[in-house]
């Protein structure tokens, strides 16, 4: 065990946890005042349920010794039974790694919630999350994050294919984006979509959330080095470069199109950049990170408009920001991966612009397509089954009057007191 690495992984894990309430605020500010608590609860529930799933079977399925074909982990870690406080992952205790990776899963499913804001039955979401984690996230995390050990085998994307995905451009971003699309199609459009104004009700909350997400993302990306070393430092500087350049890219699109830069656009650009940095921060150079960011900012600012043309109501733009930003990051690795970073990671080839030819670009695209298809199809099936049994959608009257009051017996903002009687229920 290395105490420096362990200290950094403990800190990184806490940083990633902060992304969860950060995401709740980011999303909460974007919806209307009548449904802010519901979307924040959907995100926070993803944290509440996760240890049950992850400790019992999720961690073992994702990080257990490969059960065949690089598709799913084996059962030796069911209930975390083979892990003690002496067990190490690399140079830090596995208990830290278990929680670090569990929080990645929480962030991923939390992101998905944004596609169906304002209109999903909370009980349906409560059932959907553990089922989705089991059949969608756990296998994909195994493919992407489980590297071969000295005596164990990992997943096919990380080892057999050899695509670069440093912190989860496929497992987190493409997965959340495609699952969001499938869910938005099953749950359907909000009442009044494209006719009534769905203005964000609290932009300062969106900006607070974006700030917390950015702060936490340093743990997400630099922590994915799994050590306190130069690789973590590379991830840190590249994450900064990509997030800031994407902010500028998004603002540039707005200035050209709308003649103004908006705070919402700047925050969205920063998140789009952090998304694109997630796969690419370990393989591109600091200057390359600026290119990745600029492309991500411009492309995502354009991509969020696609839903209006295609007619699906992805309420908070999970597809336009996370799927598209994740693809941008994954693909640009195939162009911009530097030889020194490739040597540092110990596998794969440099990008097209660094003399590596098309080899790595092809691997990046295969990884994206595989994760994209799997996440969309399996999520669609799960959501359809839940919709046919429990029902995924609240009734129209509840949706119009406000989901917070109906699903949670609360309202976010007290206008004028308004209480007429009181009972303790005791």
């Amino acid at each position, binding site marked *: 065990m290395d105490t420096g690495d362990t200290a950094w992984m403990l800190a990184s894990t806490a940083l990633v946890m902060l992304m969860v309430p950060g995401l709740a605020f980011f999303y909460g500010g974007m919806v209307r005042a009548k449904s802010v608590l519901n979307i924040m609860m959907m995100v926070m529930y993803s944290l509440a349920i996760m240890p049950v799933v992850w400790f019992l079977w999720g961690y073992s399925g994702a990080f257990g010794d490969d059960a065949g074909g690089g598709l799913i982990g084996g059962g030796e870690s069911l209930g975390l039974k083979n892990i003690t406080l002496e067990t190490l992952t690399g140079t830090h205790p596995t208990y830290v790694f278990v929680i670090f990776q569990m929080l990645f899963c929480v962030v991923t499913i939390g992101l998905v919630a944004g596609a169906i804001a304002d209109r999903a039955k909370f009980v349906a979401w409560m059932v959907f999350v553990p089922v989705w984690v089991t059949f969608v996230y756990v296998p994909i995390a195994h493919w992407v994050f489980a590297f071969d050990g000295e005596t164990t085998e990992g997943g096919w994307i990380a080892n057999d294919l050899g695509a670069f995905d440093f912190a989860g451009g496929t497992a987190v971003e493409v997965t959340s984006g495609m699952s969001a699309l499938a869910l938005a199609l099953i749950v359907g459009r909000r009442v009044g979509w494209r006719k009534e*104004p769905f*203005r*964000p009700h609290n932009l300062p909350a969106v900006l607070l959330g974006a700030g917390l997400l950015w702060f936490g993302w340093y743990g997400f990306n630099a922590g994915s080095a799994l050590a306190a070393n130069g690789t973590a430092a590379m991830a840190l500087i590249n994450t900064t470069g990509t997030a800031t350049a994407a902010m500028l890219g998004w603002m540039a699109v*707005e200035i050209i*199109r*709308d003649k*103004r830069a*908006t705070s*919402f*656009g700047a925050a*969205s650009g920063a998140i789009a950049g952090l998304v694109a940095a997630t796969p690419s921060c370990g393989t591109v150079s600091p200057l390359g990170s600026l290119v990745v960011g600029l492309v991500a900012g411009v492309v995502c*600012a354009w991509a*969020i*408009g696609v839903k*209006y043309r295609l007619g699906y109501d992805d309420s908070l*733009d999970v597809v336009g920001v996370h799927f598209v930003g994740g693809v941008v990051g994954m693909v640009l690795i195939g162009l911009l991966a530097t030889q020194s970073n490739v040597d540092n990671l110990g596998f794969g080839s440099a990008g097209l612009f660094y003399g590596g030819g098309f080899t790595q670009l092809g691997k990046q695209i295969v990884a994206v397509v595989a994760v994209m298809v799997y996440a969309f199809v399996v999520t669609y099936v799960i959501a359809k089954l839940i919709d046919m049994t429990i029902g995924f959608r609240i009734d129209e009257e509840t949706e119009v009057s406000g989901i917070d009051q109906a699903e949670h017996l609360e309202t976010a903002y007290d206008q004028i007191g308004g209480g007429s009687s009181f009972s303790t229920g005791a």
Partner: protein
Amino acid sequence: MKLVTAVIKPHKWEDVREALGATGIAGMTVTEASGHGQQKGHTEVYRGAEYEVTLVPKIRFEVVVDDADAESVVATIASAARTGKIGDGKVWVVPVESVVRVRTGETDESAL
């Protein structure tokens, strides 16, 4: 007695309060309101989607005065709230039948 009600631009509110204070008006009720007149709101853009925002923020305030004071109070408000641009608001006057001061039970003019 008269009830004077005014709906004005929020950033002119401090000017109106000072001008009324100088004339000895002691009490008033203020509400944050939304509305529009001839200007019909404005355009806002969120992630590239344009929204026509028809209701714009306003300050609405009400003050009950002696019949004799009504005309000068209206003039004071109108002059202090004026910017000359669209959206400056309205001031109107209606008669009041009776007033009670809750603390003392005084009525009508002595309650103002």
